[in-house]
């Protein structure tokens, strides 16, 4: 795999399209911009078609003889099932408003990363096969045959879209490239051509309940390790429970937060919060079976998303909880907010969520019966239920990265900010065109945070990183807060590449730092074990 060029090199981006028309410019797989193909065993575990050893680099992708028929039939089927798809194939006027809104286009200059052209890759085939004009006038009507080159081009560019939906904010008709990518990837999956970075988590999640394939005993011991860490920092022992029947609330969070830094500190934040609330009446349990908030099935097909998502309600029903609380995660919340109730509801066995601490009814979640932890915590702070010492985050100058899905599929903008402003003293916003509904993707969403496509990730993350760099230089920002596990996995690499002085945190890590526990010792470090400024002296005096 090619090395990623240095930032100065990478930033020399030419946005001028090539001389050759796009239909006559076949995609050439550039190393660093694509991900390895799905391993056959990971397809077999979930009964997906065409498992075989293959590499996208090979000439022959080992597709069934009737591959074209499969794809076109699949397209026809989906045109009948999704009004979005049919409409978005028909009504684009190619005004180009979306073009420079895509982080992959901004970062790569590749014209096929303009949302309009990414969609045209499919539209051209749609027109040729499903419209009168395309059948009669072919190329003149913008029609194009489905060939192996075209299919490979789909593959290359549909895995250079992170389904972030920024383009759909700016489109005068609300054409949503995520919808086109999702359905395009479904078609790709009919031939077993997923990328392994998505397929392996899917297979893992199906079997073990989480993307990382953490088995139940390991899951428990990982969290117990966090409990040890928390005890070291705070002197207080927290005691989470797992798979406990009769608990009032089931807590589900992305497994990424259990697995790797800095997500682990966010998980520690949750544990500290739950412990704090225990004496106030919080009755919550974790699950090893529903141990994944995220859903890489969503990057595969609607069906796979539904299959993986089913565990949440199933586990809630088995444990007999009243409602579900969900951790910080981006696409997880798109699925929970916009799909879960439709996929696997109605959850009649649950009750309308009510905060056991404040009595607040989460009216807006009364059907799905799942609440975002930032809603939960913001409500606690609003009701003065948390003793907070924001000065314990004084070593941090924080900015907030809106994750694509909570921003553009929920409008979840103020709640995390409200928390941050209550647990930190130094908070600065990035420029207004790079946050809230206009936020930029981390560059690694929708299953693209692999190692082999690092150049793509650094390019796609460039707009986000550039905005961080701006506030770093202007305000001395050194901490990028977010509410997404993929962000926490992807942004540290991005920061290291573009703005090495900035680290990444979840919002609840900041909460964990600020929250004053009963009986805690004087904190001299934050949850990362890094010394708190001004507090080292106290430790010295004690010695």
């Amino acid at each position, binding site marked *: 795999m090619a090395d990623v060029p240095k930032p100065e090199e990478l930033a020399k981006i030419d946005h001028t399209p090539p001389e050759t028309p796009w239909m006559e410019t076949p995609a050439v797989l550039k190393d660093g911009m694509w991900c390895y193909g799905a391993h056959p065993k990971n397809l077999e575990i979930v009964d997906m078609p065409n498992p075989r050893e293959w590499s996208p680099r090979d000439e022959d992708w080992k597709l069934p003889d009737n591959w074209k028929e499969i794809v076109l039939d699949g397209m026809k089927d989906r045109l009948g099932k999704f009004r979005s798809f049919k409409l978005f194939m028909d009504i684009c006027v190619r005004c180009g408003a979306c073009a*420079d809104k895509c982080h992959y286009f901004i970062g790569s200059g590749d014209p096929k990363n303009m949302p309009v052209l990414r969609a045209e890759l499919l539209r051209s085939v749609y027109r040729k096969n499903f419209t009168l004009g395309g059948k009669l006038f072919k190329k003149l009507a*913008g029609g194009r045959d489905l060939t192996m080159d075209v299919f490979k081009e789909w593959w290359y560019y549909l895995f250079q879209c992170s389904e972030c939906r920024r383009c759909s904010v700016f489109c005068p*008709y609300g054409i949503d490239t995520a919808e086109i990518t999702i359905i395009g990837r479904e078609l790709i999956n009919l031939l077993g051509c997923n990328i392994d970075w998505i397929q392996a988590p899917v297979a893992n999640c199906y079997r073990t309940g989480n993307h990382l394939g953490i088995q139940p*005993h390991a899951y428990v011991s990982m969290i117990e390790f966090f409990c040890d860490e928390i005890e070291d920092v705070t002197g207080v022992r927290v005691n989470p429970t797992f798979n406990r029947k009769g608990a009032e609330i089931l807590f589900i969070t992305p497994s990424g937060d259990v697995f790797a830094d800095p997500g682990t500190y966010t998980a520690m934040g949750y544990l500290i919060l739950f412990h704090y609330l225990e004496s106030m009446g919080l009755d919550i349990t974790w699950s090893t079976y529903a141990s994944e908030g995220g859903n890489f099935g969503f990057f595969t097909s609607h069906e796979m998303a539904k299959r993986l998502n*089913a565990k949440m309600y199933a586990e809630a029903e088995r444990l007999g909880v009243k409602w579900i609380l969900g951790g910080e995660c981006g696409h997880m919340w798109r699925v929970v907010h916009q799909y879960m109730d439709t996929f696997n509801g109605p959850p009649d066995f649950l009750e309308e969520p009510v905060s056991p601490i404040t009595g607040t009814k989460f009216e807006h979640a009364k059907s799905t019966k799942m609440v975002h932890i930032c809603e939960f915590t913001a409500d606690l702070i609003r009701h003065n239920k948390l003793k907070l010492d924001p000065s314990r985050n004084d070593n941090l100058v924080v900015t907030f990265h809106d994750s694509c899905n909570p921003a553009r599929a929920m*409008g979840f903008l103020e709640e995390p900010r409200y928390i941050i402003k209550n647990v930190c003293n130094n908070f600065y916003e990035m420029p207004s065109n790079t946050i809230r509904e206009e936020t930029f993707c981390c560059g690694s969403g929708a299953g693209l945070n692999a190692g082999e496509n690092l150049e793509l990730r650094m390019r796609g993350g460039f707009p986000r990183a550039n905005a961080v760099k701006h506030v770093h230089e202007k305000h001395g920002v050194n901490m990028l807060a977010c509410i997404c596990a993929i962000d926490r996995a992807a942004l540290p690499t991005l920061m290291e590449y573009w703005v090495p002085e900035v680290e990444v945190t979840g919002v609840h890590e900041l909460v964990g730092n600020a929250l004053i526990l009963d009986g805690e010792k004087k904190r001299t470090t934050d949850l990362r074990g890094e010394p708190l400024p001004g507090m080292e002296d106290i430790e010295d005096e004690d010695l």
Partner: protein
Amino acid sequence: MSAQKSILYPLVAVLVLILIPVIGVKLGLSYFFAVVVPYAAFVIFFGGILCKIVNWARSPVPFRITTTCGQGKSFDWVKHNKFDNPFTNKQVFVRMVLEVLCFRSLFRNLKMELRDGPKLTYGSAKWLWLGALAFHWSFLIILLRHMRFFAQPVPGFVDMLQSVDGFFELGVPQLFLTDAVIVAALTYLFLRRVVVPQLRYISLPSDYFPLFLLFGLILSGIGMRYFFKVDIIKVKELAMSLVILKPTVPEGIGALFYVHLFMLCVLFAYFPFSKLTHMAGVFLSPTRNLANNSRYKRHVNPWDYPVKVHTYEEYEEEFREKMKEVGLPVEKE
């Protein structure tokens, strides 16, 4: 197809289309161009659009995929952005009105620039919004002004529109503002396609064809009004006869009128088969016309089907011993 060809082919096509009625009328086919073609275009337009809408509507909306562009509804103390992130159908209605009448989304448009540093900036870029809005509103007003040819007496609002449109009272006959605006807007929309490299790259012949058709339509109309007079009385006679379904074709309406009418007919007939259907499609766009309340109210997928899942029992079966080792409760000992 190269950019040159993408422009040239539709241009030639429109020039040929202009010649057709000119030659046709010379050959004595006025009835065909004044009656048959307009009726046919009318039927294709309405029939086609209707079919298109029915066709779209036949595909369900399985999921509630609203694109939210502002704070969603949550607590009372969090300010809800009702029209960029609607929670009720009333709010959706306002969002759609803003979208359809004011091009709300296009108003957000930005222009990205990469400067040395590297530094990315996003400047306001309202020209596309302005150009699009100017074109569409002018077109609508011009269309409504034409109602004077189809009704006797002329409805009051048409007279009013006309006097507002001719407000500046420049020239004889007085210049309609919309005539000037639509030419300017259309020219802008054409030029940006040709001049901006990315736009030139994505533009298809089917993007230029309607632009050239519109140029033909508008310029022939302007030509008739300001430069090469045609017999307006006779035009109205024809229009009225078409309306009451008793078509009579008066002699001696200038050829330019037939060009104008034919451009309109081609535009109408082409409409349902082209990107111009965005006019109807915008109302059906699920990212815009759905309330963002999917956790509040369950959205039903009409084609939902059961899927194979990995049950807890299967999970425990595989991991039971390991679960017991760490003290996790199990269903079966």
